[in-house]
């Protein structure tokens, strides 16, 4: 009687000892291997490039829109000098007349000093504006949304001051609009190309990484795993890889814009910053930019996960095809 409980205790001891030694169950798909790490790096690089392109295109579009808006916000009235004309009075008359039209906001006469500064690059310093027959300007700010009737204004100005000429910058605006549209179109084209390259790279890299795991799919299939189970195991694994890669790439792109914006803010009014601003605009991403980066990360994650799922399902389908067509057996290792 006394032996029985002792035996039970002795039996239980080794069992407990063995149980203690079992390591936490590893995932069915190996968490990291060379192909997985390579895929993560490829995804990170593609996410970085895609986010960078998205941000750059966003910036170019904003800059183009800003050029267009700045130039179409003003019109200029030019008055050519004439012996019979009191220039200063004519400037005031023209400004007042222009401001009577609805759609105008403000009128500024470019004074003699400012006119001299404008001509300084060509005629040099110390220019006496009264000695030369230099045209004078009135700059009128207009409402972009409902601009004044330029044709009527031209007629009224010609009646009041025959040498006055209204320049609504239409030629420049048209050119800038065309340029801005072309720039935005090219930018969108580049964005589409980069995204297409990203999609293809991610799809092929995922398939490449999966091909190294085909033996796992086969073993799972042969131990009775359902296709959905196998696919979900691989989906989980590739979702983790793609999230790590795309978040790293997206974060680096956002960091790039944040650092560039910080540098631009710090070095404002320096030649380098002014040149960069003139060329690229401001490096601020804005909410749209950050949303775009987040959307890119989501797109990459979904893409990788779906590719993994379809590839696994297709592998299982191929195994089943081999089953029904023995001539294809050479595609599987000997069983």
């Amino acid at each position: 009687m006394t032996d029985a409980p002792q035996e039970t205790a002795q039996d239980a001891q080794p069992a407990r000892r063995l149980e203690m030694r079992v390591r936490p169950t590893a995932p069915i798909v190996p968490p990291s291997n060379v192909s997985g790490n390579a895929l993560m790096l490829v995804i990170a690089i593609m996410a970085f490039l895609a986010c960078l392109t998205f941000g750059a295109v966003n910036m170019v579009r904003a800059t183009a829109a800003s050029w267009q808006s700045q130039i179409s916000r003003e019109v200029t009235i030019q008055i050519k000098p004439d012996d019979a004309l009191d220039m200063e009075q004519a400037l005031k008359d023209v400004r007042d007349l222009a401001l009577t039209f609805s759609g105008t906001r403000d009128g500024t006469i470019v004074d003699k000093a400012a006119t001299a500064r404008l001509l300084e690059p060509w005629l040099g310093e110390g220019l006496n504006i009264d000695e030369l027959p230099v045209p004078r300007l009135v700059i009128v700010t207009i409402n972009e949304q409902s601009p004044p009737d330029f044709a009527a204004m031209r007629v009224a100005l010609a009646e009041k001051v025959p040498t006055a000429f209204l320049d609504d910058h239409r030629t420049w605006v048209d050119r800038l609009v065309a340029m801005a549209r072309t720039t935005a179109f090219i930018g969108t084209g580049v964005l589409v190309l980069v995204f297409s390259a990203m999609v293809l790279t991610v799809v092929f890299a995922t398939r490449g990484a999966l091909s190294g795991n085909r033996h796992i799919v086969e073993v799972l299939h042969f131990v009775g795993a359902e296709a959905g189970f196998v696919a979900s195991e691989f989906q989980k694994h590739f979702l983790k890889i793609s999230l790590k890669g795309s978040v790293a790439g997206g974060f680096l792109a956002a960091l790039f814009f944040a650092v560039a914006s910080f540098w631009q803010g710090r070095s404002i009014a320096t030649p380098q910053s002014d040149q960069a601003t003139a060329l690229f605009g401001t490096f601020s991403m804005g909410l749209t930019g950050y949303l775009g980066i987040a959307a890119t990360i989501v797109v990459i994650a979904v893409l990788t996960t779906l590719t993994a799922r379809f590839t696994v399902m297709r592998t299982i389908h191929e195994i089943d095809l081999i089953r029904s067509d023995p001539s294809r057996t050479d595609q599987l290792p000997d069983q």
Partner: protein
Amino acid sequence: MIHFENVGLRYGMGPEILRDLTFDIPRRSFQFLTGPSGAGKTTLLRLLFLSLQPTRGIIRTFDREISTIPRDELPMLRRRIGIVFQDFRLLDHLTTYENVALPLRVRGKEESSYRADVLELLKWVGLGERINVLPAVLSGGEKQRAAIARALIDRPELLLADEPTGNVDPPMARRLLSLFLELNRLGTAVVIATHDLSLMDQVDEARRMILSQGRLDIYD
């Protein structure tokens, strides 16, 4: 349980590897499948495991004609069959314990519900001290035993083993054979493909299925 009727199989346009096979694998039966190399033993095992369809003839598995079974129902049928591959097919990143527990894991069972059973089986096949070892570290014989344990863990109704004692010494071969016999006594039908005559001699009551030039002769 398994019924073959005039089964023939050829790969592509090649000659028939198996010809006019007609036989039964009854429930609780024990049989050795033997024959010269290239006779088609592995192919016959694959037919039994539902990983191939015959080019002619009828195969009924668990009372169902296999050509009519939809693809998505195959996993459920495979769960009733345990198989020991000649090349083991262990997953390199999983430990011996995890490899053996794999069939239970894919069935969605909780680890706590099968841990004791897996450990006990591993102990029985002599791998009690190797539970946390990866396959790369195991010897050929140990891999063989791990593969056998994986096939047995869910008490299959049919066990198929391709050269299961090919990589073990005679004492371990006898031990593994006794494991198969014990499983057979518990109700599992066993088919062992082997070249090992001494192994077959140890079980007088086993059927002998001899494949030669694509034809099968059965000695009860």
